[in-house]
């Protein structure tokens, strides 16, 4: 399958008063046209920064220090700012968490969608307005005329997220980055939003990168999953495999932490905290929390190795067990 987006060795650092923080450390993964890729990890694991880096939206004091982001064949990191703008919103768009704050409070929601048509499609004001209403209807907003004239604070959270999705999909992008799109929404609304995303993704043929800390959501909608820990990618697999046979100790811990209704077992918290990303030690960043830690883990960073078809993992312990072949 052709890769729509191919991220290779992407690294993002933040310069702080205390020193350099490696928020994203040599992350590589691919996104295929039309698929939904989940990115999971605890907060602070670099998921969001990763997404922002794809769009080159990391703001100082953060900066992209290396790697490639190939999208439809061209490396986004080498484009001019002007060329990049033509990518953002038009070919790759993004849905943010907390939809209420992601909408401009002093512009009507209609205006916020319409201006994208004007900007990226060169639509006239009138035309843009018509397409906005269409878009609002498509994301399932009743009374689009009235809603278009309203401000973010007048809409419910779910409705705001629908508006955000409308904005993101307005210009039929090839790739949609959705950063925790259901945070703060109650469960039934969240389900509706996810359904809508999946549905629209399918209909427009856009690939979706779904960033979340909720494995339940992943199980629900994703085709494949990448697991991030402390700025590093630790495991990539299709969704079935990941839940059935997680290889990385961290992934295993995550999977175990999913509350199960069918099993009356208390959820197991992952021991330890996300390690500081401030000048981290050279080895595996999970070493301090890992039940299967080896000496080598603290010295050397494990490489991402193919463990099975559609299944890659970065772990010395797994490698030692010989279950993997060099990719």
């Amino acid at each position, binding site marked *: 399958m052709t890769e729509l987006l191919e991220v290779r060795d992407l690294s993002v650092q*933040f310069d*702080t*008063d*205390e020193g350099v923080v490696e928020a994203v450390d040599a992350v590589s993964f691919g996104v295929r046209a039309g698929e939904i890729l989940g990115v999971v990890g605890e907060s602070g694991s670099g998921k969001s920064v990763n997404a922002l880096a794809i769009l080159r939206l990391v703001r100082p*004091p953060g900066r992209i220090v290396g790697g490639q982001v190939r999208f439809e064949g061209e490396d986004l990191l080498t484009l001019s700012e002007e060329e990049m703008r033509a990518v953002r919103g038009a070919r790759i768009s993004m849905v943010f968490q907390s939809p209420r704050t992601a909408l401009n409070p002093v512009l009507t929601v209609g205006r916020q969608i319409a201006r994208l048509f004007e900007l990226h499609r060169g639509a006239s004001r009138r035309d843009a307005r018509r397409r906005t209403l269409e878009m609002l209807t498509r994301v399932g907003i009743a009374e689009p005329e009235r809603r278009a004239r309203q401000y973010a604070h007048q809409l419910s959270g779910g409705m705001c997220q629908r508006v955000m999705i409308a904005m993101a999909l307005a210009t039929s992008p090839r790739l949609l980055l959705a950063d925790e799109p259901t945070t703060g929404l109650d469960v039934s609304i969240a389900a509706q939003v996810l359904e809508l995303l999946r549905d629209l993704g399918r209909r427009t043929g856009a690939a979706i990168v779904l960033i979340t800390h909720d494995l339940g959501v992943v199980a629900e909608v994703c085709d494949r999953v990448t697991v991030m820990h402390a700025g590093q990618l630790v495991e990539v697999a299709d969704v079935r495999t990941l839940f059935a046979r997680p290889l990385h100790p961290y992934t295993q811990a995550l999977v175990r932490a999913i509350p199960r209704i069918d099993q009356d077992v208390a959820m197991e918290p992952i021991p330890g905290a996300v390690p500081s990303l401030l000048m981290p030690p050279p080895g595996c960043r999970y070493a301090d929390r890992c039940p299967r830690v080896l000496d080598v883990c603290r010295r050397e960073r494990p490489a991402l190795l193919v463990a099975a078809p559609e299944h890659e993992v970065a772990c010395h312990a797994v490698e030692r067990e010989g279950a993997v072949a060099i990719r």
Partner: protein
Amino acid sequence: MRWRRLTGNRLSLAALCGILLVVAAALLAPWVAPHDPDETDAEATLSSVSLRHPLGTDIYGRDQLSRLIHAARVDLLVALSATAIALTLGATLGALAGYRGGWVDQLLMRAVDAIMAFPAFILAMGITAALGNSTANLVAAIAITHVPIYTRLIRGEMLKARETEYAEAARTVGNRPRQIVLIHLLPNCVPPLIVQATLAMGFAVLTVAALSFIGLGIQPPQSEWGQMTAEGAGYVVSGEWWLVLFPGLAIMATVLAFNLLGDTLRDVLDPRMRGVR
């Protein structure tokens, strides 16, 4: 870590050093000043910058450097005592209003509103004019105009804190109201208070200076920077530039230092204003 952020920034480090320098000069004035600040010298009136008088002399032949150093005492004392009084009074009233609520709150807040209805300097001007311009009255005037800042701040924090779970928790654990206020809530208010007080120090120095200019400041022969600048301003035209330049610089540097420090403290201590990382 906070300390590092404070000193890490070169500008705020400079500000901190400046303040320490002024404080040291004020504390050690009698030992570091090269001359008696009140010693007149008919032979050396209005002499320019020289080795003997590094910042020149005034119309009475008094050494300006020594006067500036001694003046630092007055300025810092006025600013510090005004700020301390305002802070104590304002915080107490704010805590009272915030905790008791009801008519106490209403009454206090209306009084605070009435004071706040005056621009601070105008009220300070009115009060000094009414009470007469002694150092104590100056302190009182500035303190009164600053009280509302702290009252409002503390009351706001209190109202917010009252709602938070941990005040609730403290109450359920059985702490008595006063204990709740002191042990749990006030520490929460301390960072914004420090920020406000630092900024207020600078403002107080400036208020004294401006009051001096319109003739309501510190009484001579006690020297005070604002009054020295105001007096020195008259000498610009006759060429005795050192009389206006140095006291003006002293005020500017000190106020600047307090403001910069206040700004940095705000960034560091006051989470609401802290830049998102």
